[in-house]
């Protein structure tokens, strides 16, 4: 009896341990060239799944309707709860994969999902020639391989400002560089206006202030040096940007409730003219669109990119801007997933951007008429923009949390830089980057 039980237990242990071994360990080598079917070829009986976040799950609706009608395939959108990236990474780590997913198309996030093993290369995608040449290779690449399809204009870090506040204080043109902007902020402060508004409690936007100051350095290869360990966050370039940010806060150029303010407060403050400027990304404008109509926004809100030497934007494509296709092991569904992307960026693209009321990325497809001016200004900044930390660094440390701690008063700039560098090194080492 005892022996029977111990054998049974041993057997169970073995099957259990087999079940728990790493599901990603079967690396497929992909030597065959990627093939692309006609976007409207018949796919009767094929079922595709797209993972989306709470803020992107309605994005594909129009495309899916068209694709289903044209091909006979069934496409289902599954919403992964926030925080989306963590949810997806956890599921993929346990072997659960969709056919397609919204994903931030930056090098650091493609590394984080282990693109080489998990994602289909999108080499030779049929829509690339149709795209605005400036945007074609902006993002979505890891090394030389393309893993993501950019569907909408990527987010840009820059300054959203209240046109009416500027006009009321006699400001007729937007600042020409970062120092100009600070001078302008001091003038506004002298007139009793809160120049800048930051959300210390929600934390994530704090990093934009440091990143826009690094735009010129990024152009000169800052992130390449950081990626190889030749330069650190603690060296003068990044540390200087952090210190400058703190000194602007200490000077009183920000809202007095900077420690407790949230994302919502930031949008309200800019819209009702409580503050003049906010350094933010496109999702901030999305919040404004939820609060006001296009006519009001065109009247009130403007956008300009900023960098130390001029008006260079810092681009940071986010999860709602792009899709990746997974290697599921089912060749038919993998091909169908590629076909859906080709339909999306091909026959379905005009309907898609009209439905989303957003800027077109393809030269032959005109913008819908109702796109707000600020979004057009953001898009205009994309072409000349430089990549953000998320786009160009091999890892994405929690710089924003450390900066929020600095705002709360528990860290100084040196500690922020050191904590960020330590975490960057840890992540870079896990990602297998040389020099860590």
């Amino acid at each position: 009896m005892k022996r029977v039980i111990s054998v049974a237990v041993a057997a169970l242990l073995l099957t259990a341990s087999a079940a728990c071994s790493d599901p990603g360990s079967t690396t497929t080598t992909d030597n065959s060239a990627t093939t692309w079917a006609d976007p409207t070829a018949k796919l009767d009986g094929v079922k595709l799944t797209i993972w989306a976040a709470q803020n992107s799950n309605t994005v594909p609706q129009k495309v899916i309707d068209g694709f289903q009608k044209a091909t006979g395939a069934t496409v289902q959108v599954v919403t992964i709860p926030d925080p989306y990236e963590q949810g997806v990474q956890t599921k993929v780590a346990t072997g659960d994969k969709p056919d397609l997913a919204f994903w931030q198309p930056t090098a650091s996030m493609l590394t984080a999902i282990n693109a080489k093993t998990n994602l289909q290369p999108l080499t030779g995608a049929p829509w690339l020639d149709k795209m605005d040449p400036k945007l074609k290779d902006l993002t979505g690449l890891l090394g030389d391989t393309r893993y993501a399809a950019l569907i909408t204009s990527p987010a840009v870090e820059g300054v959203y400002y209240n046109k009416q506040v500027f006009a009321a204080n006699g400001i007729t043109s937007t600042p020409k560089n970062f120092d100009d902007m600070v001078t302008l902020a001091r003038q506004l402060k002298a007139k009793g206006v809160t120049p800048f508004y930051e959300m210390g409690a929600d934390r994530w936007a704090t990093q934009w202030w440091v990143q826009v100051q690094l735009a010129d350095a990024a152009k000169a290869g800052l992130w390449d040096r950081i990626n190889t360990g030749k330069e650190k966050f603690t060296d003068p370039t990044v540390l200087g940007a952090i210190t400058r940010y703190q000194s602007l806060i200490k000077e009183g150029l920000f809202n007095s409730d900077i420690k407790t303010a949230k994302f919502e407060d930031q949008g309200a403050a800019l819209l009702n003219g409580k503050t003049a400027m906010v350094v933010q990304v496109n999702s901030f404008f999305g919040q404004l669109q939820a609060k006001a109509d296009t006519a009001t926004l065109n009247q009130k809100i403007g956008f300009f990119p900023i960098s130390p030497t001029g008006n260079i934007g810092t681009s940071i494509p986010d999860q709602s801007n792009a899709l990746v296709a997974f290697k599921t092991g089912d060749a038919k569904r993998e091909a169908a997933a590629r076909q859906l992307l080709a339909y999306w960026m091909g026959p379905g693209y005009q309907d898609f951007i009209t439905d989303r009321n957003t800027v077109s990325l393809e030269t032959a497809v005109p913008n819908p008429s109702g796109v707000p001016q600020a979004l057009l200004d953001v898009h205009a900044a994309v072409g000349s923009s430089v990549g953000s930390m998320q786009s160009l660094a091999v890892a994405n440390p929690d710089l924003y949390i450390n900066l929020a701690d600095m705002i709360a008063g528990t860290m100084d700039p040196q500690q922020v830089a050191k904590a960020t560098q330590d975490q960057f090194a840890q992540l870079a080492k896990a990602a297998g980057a040389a020099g860590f």
Partner: protein
Amino acid sequence: MWFLLPAYAVLLLFFFVPTAFNFIYAFTDWSSFKAAINPVGLDNFTQLASDGTLFRALRITVLYAVLVAIFQNLFGFGLAVLLERDTVVNRIARTFFLIPVLMSALAVGYIFQALLKPSGAVDQLFGIHYAWLADTHWTIVVVALIHAWKWMGLSMLIYLAGLKTIPEDITEAARIDGASRWRSFWRIRVPMLAPAVTFNVATALLGSMNGFDIVQATTGGGPARTTEILNIFIYRTFGQGLFAQATTMSLVLFLLVALMAFPVIYVLRKREAIL
């Protein structure tokens, strides 16, 4: 014997195997970045030990657990004494105090977050402007109070059960011997509650060591990470794709809870020896 097998199989599959893997993965470089999992020895432990974050998170976790244990037992005990008699009002009141126990912890957290925000309902009630959840010194106490508020109904129930099982004749004998109500309460009834104290203190202390939901919903670990208990740190690390490091931390938490559980339960059981 055979009928026990399914139960053991479930226990093995869903408890022993994951626990064993919790030990194994802590010594590897498992991450979302690559497919292979390689052993790395004690790397994760030395890396964590050299970084001050782990010790800060541990310190906050223990402080949080102690605060919750104190508050939850004070509230629970007070409520049990107040609501001991079986009147209609008391019965209704007991039910109301038990409702938070049944509520979703996240819901509780979000409700309090809304109540306590600067110029929120609580500030308006007192006519002040104070950011309850943004004070780097006192927010941990506020969050511990919320945690205790949610679970005080359970402590109340156990203390009530303890009070109900004290034989009537003992208190009656004390009264005949001339003991005041005050004296017989503190000298007779409270010591007789020792088993209830053991259960309540141990579950509150060790349960809140594993806390996550209420802190995540109220502060998310802020302000400036002063409420970042270990589970929130683990959650963040896991979210970064550093699965092995997160596993290492949860192993440390497991060992810490085990190390604290034995002496705490031993001391509390000792107090019951007089019974």
